[in-house]
């Protein structure tokens, strides 16, 4: 299903996203093949990636923002190469790591959000407002001056997410977002995901989370073995993992 994302829109409720193209991509990490000849054009609003541990889900996401370079093939995000134009891609594509502690760099919440903005050249005068607005939008304005190490796991994840949203990306990549959360926080994340205007690509074991997505890819040993409707994809994954 080919869909063109609107490149400019004044309608703030219009969906936002990018076209991500994997062209015959192989990735080698630590001497092992992590992705094997992956080809796909990703344009949908909600895309899921399922696979067992070590199947290559994380590598797929990291490759989109140029954290791992393909040994063969290319990845383009709205036409920009993920490796040679990584900076531009990272300005519009956020990656939420599985462990929020790895992603939060500053000891105080507000300062960490400011870090993201400063990296992308946002003027100092604007930083304060954008940090406040983003925290507000996620319902964690009260955490602005708090210290990271005093927060719960769920709160840390929200802070990490805020750190990505503050630069107003077009696409968000999620690496196993619910695997370390309890039920309450898992539900909260599902709610957030439903309301998120940005395109989202989610690598997860949480089959319920992906159930109402637009498209789900099943990865096995670095290869895409199924690509299509969530229900069928999930069924395939379950069957093949038995």
């Amino acid at each position: 299903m080919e869909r063109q994302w609107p490149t400019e829109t004044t309608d703030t409720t219009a969906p936002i996203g990018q076209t991500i193209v994997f062209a015959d991509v192989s990735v080698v990490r630590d001497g092992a093949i992590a992705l094997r000849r992956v080809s796909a054009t990703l344009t949908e609003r909600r895309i899921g990636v399922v696979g067992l541990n070590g199947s290559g889900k994380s590598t797929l996401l990291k490759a989109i923002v140029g954290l791992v370079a393909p040994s063969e093939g290319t990845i383009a995000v709205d036409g920009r190469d993920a490796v040679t134009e990584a900076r531009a891609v990272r300005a519009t594509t956020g990656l939420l790591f599985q462990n929020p502690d790895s992603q939060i760099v500053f000891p105080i919440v507000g300062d960490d959000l400011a870090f993201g903005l400063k990296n992308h050249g946002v003027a100092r005068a604007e930083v304060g407002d954008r940090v406040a607005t983003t925290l507000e939008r996620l319902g964690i304005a009260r955490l602005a001056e708090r210290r990271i190490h005093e927060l719960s796991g769920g709160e840390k994840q929200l802070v990490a997410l805020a750190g990505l949203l503050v630069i107003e990306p077009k696409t968000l990549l999620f690496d196993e977002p619910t695997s370390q959360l309890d039920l309450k926080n898992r539900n909260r994340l599902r709610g957030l995901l439903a309301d998120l205007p940005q395109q989202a690509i989610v690598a997860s074991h949480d089959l319920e989370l992906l159930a109402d997505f637009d498209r789900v890819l099943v990865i096995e040993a670095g290869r895409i073995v199924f690509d299509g409707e969530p229900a069928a994809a999930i069924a395939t994954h379950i069957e093949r993992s038995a």
Partner: protein
Amino acid sequence: MIDGLGSTGTTPLHRLPAGVKLAGLAVIATVLFVVREPMVLTAVAAAAIAVALSTGRGVAATARDLALPLGLVAAIGAVEWGLGDGEVAACVVPRLVALLFLAHAVTLTTSTAELAETFEAGLAPFERLGLIDAGRAALTLTLAIRFVPLIVEEAREIREAQAARGLSIRPTALIVPLVVRVLVRAEEVADAIDARGFPPNKNSNM
């Protein structure tokens, strides 16, 4: 996150700019090493103690802060005096006491932010020579502060896990898994920093 010892306050020393205090400390320290008069040095030491107490930290806390170095100074003095080098002791002890209390007073009355600014200004010439990148240096320090509590927590977890298995504390058994976790985390953090667009372009409008 650990807190710095410095604080903001209203005492005269608090209100002096950081640069003045640091330069003053450097000058006084140099002078102290040149002076050889025990009486003069003792007077300076007494003044230094008074200055340190003027910061409002309190006698007990100040004594605790400086317990180790003061104890060492006392030991040095006792040894020198006991071995007949009383004159040496009469100079060394007040000199070190003066240095310790003055330096500590500067630390107590200068906030971390002020010190960091002065530090950055001090690094500026090295940056112009291309020897150091102040932005990366600052980020490195911030990262270190940020992760201390997490690593302390991980050390605690490892120790508890081993105690639960009935193993006594062996340093290697604690440090090896801790170091591995730290190294793994370092790689993840580096990836996250890259993914968040660090470093900023030099010609951004900041």
